[in-house]
């Protein structure tokens, strides 16, 4: 009897079927929670998903690497979904043309501020140089954060994790902070959040407004490019 139970637990711990089902079901419950709570900031499906699935993973003693591996079928669609961000951009094209120069300048300023402030604040609080280099690319989307961290000599997988935290912070707190900062133009709001919270911020804004979501996705791509360009120069000055 107990051997059977252990066998079942072992199966659950590595089964893509169970782990993908868990992820999708918890996410779906997160969506219902968001809608029922009238879009409460903390009821973002990505946050509910990470916290609840994370708790189950810890409770069942699932190996985190095995979970990530088993759910690759879900993560795989991040690629096509990124390509799909062209569609809201296409629909908002008439709004984009008028603001191209302000957008490009703002994204470049953002890349410099993000990298510099992350390194300096971490240094002031006692982080060593390795951790400062690891934190520097956190405003870019996770695959870019990994690549940039590698060239900088940081801990690449930790950089990806920090980027995901920055994204989730944006999904939860971004819209409120932007309203508090008196940012009202939906194009400005999209670009601002996309520059610091990449795809996860975009996922949130797309649910709120297509204009904000479209500009957020664009800013995510441009921030990846801008950060790649300014990082070598900033690294020479900072480290």
């Amino acid at each position, binding site marked *: 009897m107990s051997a059977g139970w252990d066998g079942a637990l072992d199966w659950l711990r590595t089964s893509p079927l169970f782990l993908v089902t868990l992820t*999708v079901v918890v*996410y779906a419950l997160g969506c219902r929670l968001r809608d029922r709570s009238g879009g409460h900031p903390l009821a973002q499906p*990505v946050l509910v*998903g*990470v916290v609840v*699935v994370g708790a189950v993973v810890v409770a069942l003693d699932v190996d*985190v690497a095995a*979970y*990530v591996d088993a*759910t690759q079928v*879900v*993560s795989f*669609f*991040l*690629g*096509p979904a990124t*390509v*799909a961000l*062209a*569609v809201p951009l*296409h629909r908002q094209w008439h709004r984009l043309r008028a603001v191209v*120069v302000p957008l490009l*300048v*703002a994204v470049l*300023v*953002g890349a410099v*501020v*993000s990298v510099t*402030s*992350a390194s300096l*604040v971490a240094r002031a*609080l*006692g*982080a060593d140089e390795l*951790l400062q280099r690891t934190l520097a690319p*956190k*405003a870019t989307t996770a*695959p870019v954060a990994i690549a940039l961290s590698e060239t900088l000599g940081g801990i690449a997988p*930790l950089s990806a*994790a*920090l980027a*995901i935290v920055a994204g*989730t912070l*944006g999904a939860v707190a971004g819209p409120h*902070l932007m309203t508090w*900062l008196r940012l009202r133009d939906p194009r400005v709001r999209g670009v*601002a*959040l996309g*520059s*610091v919270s990449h795809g*996860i911020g*975009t*996922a949130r804004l*797309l*649910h709120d407004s297509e204009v904000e*979501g479209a500009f957020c996705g664009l800013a995510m*791509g441009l921030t*990846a*490019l801008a950060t*790649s360009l300014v990082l070598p120069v900033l690294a020479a000055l900072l480290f």
Partner: protein
Amino acid sequence: MSRGPAAVVTGLAWLLVCQLVGTALVAALDAPVPGPVVGMVLLLVVLRVRRPRDDHPVLTTSTGLLAHLQLLFVPAGVGILAYVGTVRADVLPLGAGLVVSWGAGLAAVGWTMQALVRRRATGRGAAR
């Protein structure tokens, strides 16, 4: 345009081909951007040139996929658990650095763009 299940497959094929070409371009040029982002630019060019109708499969499939973009980040988010142990001693500098820098970046981008957009708007108004 065809509707139903075939439309989803057609739409997905469009997205995957753009991602594949984008990834190949990035690899060939050794460019510092992710392949899917280049794929996004490629699809945007195609959409601007061909201007498909609103019910074209690539438009309907993309809208459906983007409606659940948050789901796709859950596995990576749970993956953070693997690093909780390694950063325990440095939670304060990393956490505070991340949050402060995130807010500073958001304000810098938002205020810069807002100021430039307003200046252009008033400049144009004065010219008229």
